[in-house]
């Protein structure tokens, strides 16, 4: 992170309030204190976020005295920057043009994100310093070699670097770190009661955006989230885990990956790769 602060003119830190970006914030504090974190926090709000998550995001940014920039997919649609595919309700792909527009607006040259290589196959190939061309595109065949701890952060105008300090962390590492540092996380990571419907083999939260379809039964379950995406594609896991220790024990015994509960990755074998090539974070 200090390398980013040292090498780039206008970096930003992507902060959603999710568990990975919570770790990022603590790393930033460790890297820069007693100074303030020398970059703004940026969040692309799909409008389909869990309300608990947004409330947490806003409060944490205020507590840290950090500048929080929010760019909304809804606004991007209104401005014609992002156009939903016919019939598509997911806002996942629409984050891409929204993020790229924010990068352009603030002329960010580097964005620090909380992506981890263990999440997904295409992410496994990601660099710490991941070069994006002036269209925001990632080219897996043309990545800069990263040798030792020497990161090449040089850019030409319009190009951008995505920086992933947590690349080598696993889901377990994230929770162990959160426990060790006693970091606060949004309440939805802990077990709570929620109305759910079963769809495509997953429990999805019933909301205004995602009402139950005819024939689907709404059930009250004790659930928590393992990974937070859009509220319409985040699968909930039935779990009584309400402490860090419980969560860690649950992950240790888990038989499916965290991404197993994300509908957006199941669209095709290379769904994440295709999104990243288009500029996804």
């Amino acid at each position: 992170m200090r390398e980013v602060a040292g090498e780039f003119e206008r970096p930003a830190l992507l902060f959603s309030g999710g568990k990975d970006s919570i770790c990022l914030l603590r790393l930033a504090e460790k890297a820069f204190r007693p100074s303030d974190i020398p970059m703004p926090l940026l969040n692309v709000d799909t409008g389909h976020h869990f309300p608990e998550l947004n409330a947490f995001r806003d409060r944490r940014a205020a507590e840290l005295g950090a500048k929080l920039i929010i760019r909304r997919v809804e606004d991007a649609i209104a401005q014609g920057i992002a156009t939903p595919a016919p019939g598509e309700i997911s806002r996942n792909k629409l984050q891409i043009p929204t993020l790229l527009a924010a990068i352009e607006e603030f002329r960010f040259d580097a964005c620090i994100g909380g992506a981890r290589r263990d999440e997904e196959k295409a992410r496994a190939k990601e660099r710490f310093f991941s070069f994006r061309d002036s269209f925001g595109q990632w080219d897996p065949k043309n990545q800069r070699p990263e040798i030792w701890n020497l990161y090449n952060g040089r850019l030409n105008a319009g190009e951008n670097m995505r920086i992933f300090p947590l690349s080598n962390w696993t889901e377990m590492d994230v929770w162990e770190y959160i426990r060790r540092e006693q970091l606060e996380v949004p309440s939805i990571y802990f077990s709570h009661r929620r109305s759910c419907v079963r769809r495509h083999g997953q429990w999805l939260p019933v909301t205004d955006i995602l009402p139950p379809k005819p024939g689907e039964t709404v059930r009250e379950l004790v659930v928590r989230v393992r990974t937070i995406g859009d509220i319409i594609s985040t699968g909930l896991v039935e779990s009584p885990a309400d402490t860090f220790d419980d969560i860690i024990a649950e992950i240790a015994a888990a038989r499916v990956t965290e991404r197993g509960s994300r509908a957006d990755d199941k669209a095709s074998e290379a769904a994440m790769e295709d999104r990243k090539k288009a500029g996804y974070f």
Partner: protein
Amino acid sequence: MSISPAPELNATLAPEPLSPSSIASTALATHPIDILRFNTCGSVDDGKSTLIGRLLYDSKSLMEDQIEALERSADITGGGQINLANLTDGLRAEREQGITIDVAYRYFATPRRKFIIADTPGHVQYTRNMVTGASTANLSIVLVDARTGVIEQSRRHSCLASLLRIPHLVVAVNKMDLVGWSEERFREIRDDFEKFLPRLDIKDVKFIPISALNGDNVVSPSPHTPWHVGPPLLGHLETVHIASDWNLSGFRFPVQWVNRPHSPSNPRLHDFRGLSGQIAGGVVRRGQKVLVLPAGITTSIKQIWTYDGPVDEAFCPQSVTLVLEHDLDVSRGNMIVGLDDFMPGAGSNLHAKICWMHPRPLQRGKKYLLKHTTNTVQAVVSEIENRIDITTLEPRSAPAELALNDIGEIRLRTAKPLFYDGYATNRLTGSFILIEQGTNATVAAGMLLPPKQVVRADEIDFVI
């Protein structure tokens, strides 16, 4: 200048945990529990991806949805047989060609250790990615196809492991099932490989006969190799002794970021001027005399800051913020070193081994950017001394150029003097990359040879 820590920063005096508190230290992972980082290499179709898939599968590190995904693609692509290689070959282009085109990182853990695998391609076109994967590894697995035996690629990979000073090597003789589990064939390959070993600087080499496809000797011992003594591959990976290779004898602190809070709300922080970075070698203690380079000024350490409070000493590879006794002009790219017998080399004429990583060959006389620690300077290649023949490790004298994947010795002149160590004594202060101006491509990885001239502490003026 006198400051005392702000109360909220002084809350705990716990020793600095080995936290991944910077990008740099994440790359050289420090973790409460033991992590073995290894890479796999071999030619195309030697079965690297299959081996990694097998390690994950048999060590029960795969999750149900991953196995389901494998089964789904097996149904579509071929014969209903699960292809373990599809676990790592995740990109479309890789599946199209059936080869690995880039480094993929995989993670798994057993009760004894955590593992980070860099799955590095064997295809010659992507050797630069192999160097990338190997530069941070503790151990290298070279796969040899039992049918074809030791070939140029196997030698090239072992040589790279040696050049990058990876301390441990495993030669996994794969596809033993296809040579009828012949002990004779295994010995032949081992003898062939051992002839080559004296040229390498690797002390620990193990040979293991395996079948990645069937899982023999990968996680559990194979009934087909009663003649093989020693553990299966995973057992070896779990127990190989990875003594710390951090050099603790010479303090090196490349300044990464100048920490000046300028806090209007907290007057005690107003004059704070700290130097943040990762310790690249040695130990630093409060009160210790240090030398600031290139200024050549001696001062002492007033405070060692961490997020969890001040500490009395810190060591490589921790990330800390140092406050100096005197208010000196120090910036990113400068280096703070200890005043002891073990001083860094100094100068703008450098001698190094490099691996060329770009399709456009190295041009003598062309200016490149050289990034060394936190310092980026202009550099020009004054001489290409030799190209190293990887199959024999013999130097071939004075080539006209170094092309993609070539390794050779060069001499460089930098626009400003560098302070450095030989790569053999310190991986962090002895390595550099070359960046092409204009395209900004990373074109070479360099390892510095031991310095001829070092900074002499007794010649330094005490300016303040």
